[in-house]
């Protein structure tokens, strides 16, 4: 049996290594362009390590058992009458409990951090309407724009409303997402860390034009942002 256990562990390690390669070689997440998404990606990797371990365990036991104990279909003997094992059952109740609570605690901490607006965030109202976004810069005389322009390394608080139906504000590279709901205000914080051009996507089905409800998001330097504001006001 000791050799069997060694074989089982070997199968598990091979599966885990394969999965790790798949997890690392492919770029599963878009490049993070915000502090919030950096933290979300940390939780993602934490969950991925645990998931690879659990899947490798389950898959290894199945592969090993079928390989080791498969019998021809006309075999008519029975297996050993093992009804259970209290110690094992306690273990596989307690260990997953610890793991999921660990994920829960990490997630709660990150969620709280990602909700902190800093001392003076840039206030932007994002208004969803079939099928376009409108951004209102309330710090700058309610400047209105169909394009989202943000200064880098400055917390921005998006306050969302919707005119007609549900929409959802999402920039994949920012990680953050929030529905715009008719009748109430919702909000998220984004702190862009990377200059460049991104896409605002509507993530909540809002009708036949849902797929095309996109807007451009530009993250620029503080100076360029000020210049853009002046241009818009000119």
């Amino acid at each position, binding site marked *: 049996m000791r050799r069997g256990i060694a074989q089982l562990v070997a199968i598990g390690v091979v599966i885990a290594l394969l999965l790790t390669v798949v997890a690392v070689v492919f770029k599963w997440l878009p490049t993070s362009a915000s502090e919030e998404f950096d933290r979300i990606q940390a939780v993602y990797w934490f969950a991925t390590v645990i998931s690879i371990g659990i899947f490798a365990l389950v*898959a290894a036991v199945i592969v090993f058992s079928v390989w080791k104990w498969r019998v021809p279909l006309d*075999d008519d003997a*029975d297996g*050993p009458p093992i009804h259970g*094992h209290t110690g094992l059952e306690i273990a596989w*109740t307690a260990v997953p409990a610890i793991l*999921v609570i660990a994920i829960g605690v990490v997630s709660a901490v990150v969620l709280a951090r990602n909700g902190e607006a800093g001392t003076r965030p840039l206030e932007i109202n994002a208004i969803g309407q079939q099928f376009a976004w409108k951004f209102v810069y309330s710090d700058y005389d309610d400047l209105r724009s169909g394009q989202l322009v943000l200064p880098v390394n400055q917390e921005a608080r998006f306050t969302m409303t919707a005119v007609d139906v549900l929409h959802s504000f*999402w920039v994949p590279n920012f990680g953050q997402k929030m529905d715009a709901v008719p009748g109430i205000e919702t909000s998220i914080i984004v702190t862009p860390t990377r200059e460049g051009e991104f896409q605002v996507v509507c993530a909540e089905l809002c009708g*036949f034009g849902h797929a095309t409800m996109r807007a451009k998001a530009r993250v620029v330097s503080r100076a360029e942002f000020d210049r853009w504001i002046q241009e818009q006001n000119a």
Partner: protein
Amino acid sequence: MTTTLEHATPDHPGPDHGYPEHYEPPRGPYWRLFFGPGLVRGVWMALAFFVFGLLIVAGLRWWWGWDPILHWEVIAAVAGMTTAPIGFLAGIGSFDYWLHYIVGRPTRPEDHSGHGATSWKDYFRVNTDHKVIGIQYLVTTFVFFTIGGLMAMLFRAELAQPGLQFVDPQTFNGLVSVHATLMIFLFIIPAFAGIANFVVPLMLGAPDMAFPRLNALSFWLLPIAGLMFVTSFVVSGGAFGAGWTGYAPLAEGQPLGQTFFNIGVQWAGASSIMTALNFLVTIITMRAPGMTFWRMPLLVWANFTTSLLVVIATPFIAGSQFFVMFDRIMHTSFFVPDGGGYVLGYQHIFWFYSHPAVYIMMLPGFGIVSEVISSMSRKPIFGYRLMALSLMGILVLGFSVWAHHMFVAGMADWLRVPMMITTLLIAIPTGIKVFSWIATLWRGRIHLTTPMLFALGFVTMFTIGGLSGIYLGSVPIDIAASDTYFIVAHIHYVLFGGSVFTIFAGVYFWFPKITGRMYDERLGKLHFWLTFVSFNATFFPMHYVGLRGMPRRVSDYSEAFGDLNFAISIASFVLGASFVVFAYNIIVSWVRGPIAGGNPWRAHTLEWQVTSPPPIFNFDEIPQVVGGPYEYGVPGARHAVMSAAAAEPQEVRA
């Protein structure tokens, strides 16, 4: 072959009850064709009730002076989808017994002429035999599975390339919505009900379900719901396109098709509730002597917990859809913010059903897999009591997690962390089940038959679905991944790699019991491997495109995802084609497969101790249960004594 009374039992006396063995209506054959219960009367009564509903609407609108008198949206809802189906049900005879009772006419004595099936025509009648109803359920649900699958291939064709090629966006939304609705309400939930209908009374040692007429009625509600979902494509404005979730306020502004969803769900939901009540009463009151709760097979436990979920949760979706329909038709403002409505209220009510619905769609599968893995490994199920208790754990926790569907919906911030914790905690009872299944394999004598392949495929695929569920349970990750293809991948790992695999496992496993014939093992294995590989090729890459930034429910998408979506679409067509192998195998084997014998798997539960197919009232003698259901390998252990006459130990029949 006529229904003679050779199956008469002490509870169901023979001819000495004083009535003729078959109840014969007192008129001729034409009179009977048109006025006797059956599809012909169903059709004309549906038409008559439609006219009746139309007159109510038109009459009331004329009375109040409302214009137009013929308001077709209201007529569709009242006459088309409410009174006409009632007429149809009355016509086929679902209410005959109760109506006779109510109006004081002599009720038809229970002669069991509506019981059992001697020709294919009996499957198109109101039939009170749980085995016939089980087959009616399964055939109907696989028809709708095919329709829903074809819809999926249509929109996968559209998604093979960015841009629009085949369908316009509204039709696309309709296809996506109807696909999901059919798969959930007309396939997974009722297919499990079908399997359980056939198997649960047999497993309990009961002659039938507790309420056979209610059982027949709950089946006939299903085709009505399915017809509504499918025919919504032909009305003006097209099928309902607000997703199967039908979120307000989008659903409130949709064309007429949305009403088909609002009301179709009521019929499907009523069917579910009636069946669930029937299972609960059957399981509580009709267990054979000696069948204590702790001797029930896990499939029975699973359907017990599922039925509790159904009766508690289903009224909530009924309510949510009524509110939306009232907003649409009667201009109330439950979810209209300008009228004081609360948009998020819809989502709370909807998910208070629809999250438990995920377990309604999963727990019966857990039961099936427990049966298959135990008998195919020739070992007792590992940790039987904890397996049953973990079902109850999921039942209770399942009601406290609904808002994890709403982490980005804008609900109260403080609600997110508690809902995350309860969501993550569900991984514990679920993990117990997965670990117990693989522990059952350990040192077993594993028979790798088709149902076993599907069961093992289920355990691995469901583990992936469960793990992606942990990602989504974590609020920060969910905020990034919500509403993307990651969700599409997750639900298909849970509902296809999970539920549908278990349905396949169950159909193959009980096929010899249901038909008396054996399916083709080689074709079964081909079906499994084709399905397993193309399933993964279809849905695993969706995790990737979702995380990378492709939202769900879009007919058009960024060029960057073009190649992967092309590959996904090709794989999905292979997945669709793999179903042909299954259909061919089942149909051909049903007609001329080899005779299976009573107990081809040498299983211990009661349904395998009778002939295949089972006798009309299941047991010639009520069995006496004397032990647990999975005592494989225990010397001398037995689950039940089938006949008092043969009380000495008997070999399990091969």
